């Protein structure tokens, strides 16, 4: 059974690499469901990925992320570049259901064979992404999409996970963001490489952009004196309209300047660090998952259940229980 699944995964990977869109779509489903087939496929695809520019797009619900992404796709397609989009929307914590509505704004690209748009439900993952987002991005990367937009769920002030998985983080801000104090709060704006003030056609949008510019760049001088202290990013602030397309080619050019593959390699140290962090988080996630599976395995089940009971009744502290389970796993398997 496992053998058959692995074989199916490899076939999907090969066919998706050769341009089979149906296979690519099926593969993404396997990845979302975290199946054996997906794992086999990623073993093939992962070494072939790593050259795409992963652009994270985040911002509050209704800021215009999807519309702006659609507009960026239009600009990239005007230059003949293939583009993929992963659009994440929240799953209901109650029923597990989801409305994946980002596509509504992007349907003008539906029939373009060089655009691939995929919606993903967050399925219980918090932080604005889905558990399988990084793996899905690697698959699209390996299947010939050099530019990939990852649109997060609508975020609040502190869902900054996207910045640790994307090469470049674009924060979309709507003009009604509040005053300068909002711009100096910690969180989302700190992890932006570029802030796009969207809905630039609305009155007051230019004022928002200049407030943000003033507040976000104010610490630059202080940074230089700070030595090795961790510093927030100093994002470029651009005024755009996803709806009319005004400013979008300029935004795409600003993103392209941050493409790790670009010649001038601006921020390439940061990119290397980001990719390192991404790999670390990915590995940690897979290790945790594998560990969980092993502990649920029939051979360890009773021991695991006993530990859970002991912690639940406060008979044992969770640290001691965890150490004991780990030691038992290693002594039995090693």
């Amino acid at each position, binding site marked *: 059974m496992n053998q058959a*699944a692995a074989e*199916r995964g490899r076939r999907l990977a090969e066919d998706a690499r050769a341009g089979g*869109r*149906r296979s690519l*779509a*099926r593969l*993404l*489903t396997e990845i*979302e*469901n*975290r*199946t054996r087939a997906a794992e086999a496929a990623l073993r093939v695809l992962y070494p072939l990925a790593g050259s795409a520019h992963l652009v994270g797009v985040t911002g509050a619900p209704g800021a215009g992320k999807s519309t702006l992404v659609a507009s960026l796709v239009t600009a990239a397609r005007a230059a003949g570049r293939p583009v993929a989009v992963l659009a994440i929307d929240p*799953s*209901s914590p109650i*029923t*597990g*259901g*989801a*409305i*994946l*509505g980002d*596509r*509504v704004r992007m*349907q003008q690209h*539906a*029939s373009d064979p060089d655009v*691939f*748009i*995929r*919606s993903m*439900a967050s399925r219980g993952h918090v932080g604005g992404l889905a558990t399988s987002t990084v793996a899905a991005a690697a698959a699209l990367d390996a299947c010939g999409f050099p530019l990939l937009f990852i649109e997060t769920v609508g975020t609040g002030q502190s869902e900054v996970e996207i910045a640790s998985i994307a090469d470049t983080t674009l924060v979309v801000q709507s003009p009604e963001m509040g005053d300068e104090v909002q711009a100096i709060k910690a969180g989302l704006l700190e992890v932006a490489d570029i802030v796009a003030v969207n809905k630039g056609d609305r009155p007051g949008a230019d004022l928002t952009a200049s407030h943000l510019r003033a507040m976000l760049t104010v610490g630059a001088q202080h940074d230089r004196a700070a030595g090795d202290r961790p510093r927030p990013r100093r994002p470029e602030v651009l005024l755009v309209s996803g709806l009319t397309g005004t400013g979008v080619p300029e935004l795409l050019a600003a993103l392209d300047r941050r493409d790790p593959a670009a010649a001038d390699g601006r921020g390439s140290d940061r990119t290397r660090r980001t990719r390192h962090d991404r790999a670390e988080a990915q590995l940690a996630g897979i290790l945790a998952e594998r560990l969980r599976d092993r502990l649920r395995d029939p051979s360890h089940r009773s021991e695991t259940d006993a530990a859970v009971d002991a912690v639940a009744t406060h008979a044992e502290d969770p640290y001691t229980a965890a150490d004991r389970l780990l030691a038992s796993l290693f002594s039995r398997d090693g």
Partner: protein
Amino acid sequence: MSDRPIKVLIAKPGLDGHDRGAKVLARGLRDEGFEVVYTGLRQTPDMIASAALQEDVDVVGLSILSGAHLTLLPRITRLLREQGMADVLVTAGGIIPDEDIPVLEAAGVSAVFGPGTSIGEVAAYLRTHVAPRET
């Protein structure tokens, strides 16, 4: 995993602007635990078929109130078949005269849900009729 949510595309082919039903159904199916991709108004058969392919959905639900169902729906089922998605369940809802239902069924639409259908009925139908996938 057998407990993965069923993924449904809700689309409105053609030119009518009556999307309340589609939105109510999308919302209702969300509450029933489905993952619902909503593509909005005025979709061509080609846009719907491409979206179904890229999203790898189990079900395509088409809401149509314009009277153009005999033209548009068979075109969508044909495009789905041509791209290897004959196993995807296609259902329709909206204003569709009874005498047209057999024609649509012959074209590959597996069920037509008229006005007054409850969301529970639709959800139960989908749960029973979506083909299980290989694992």
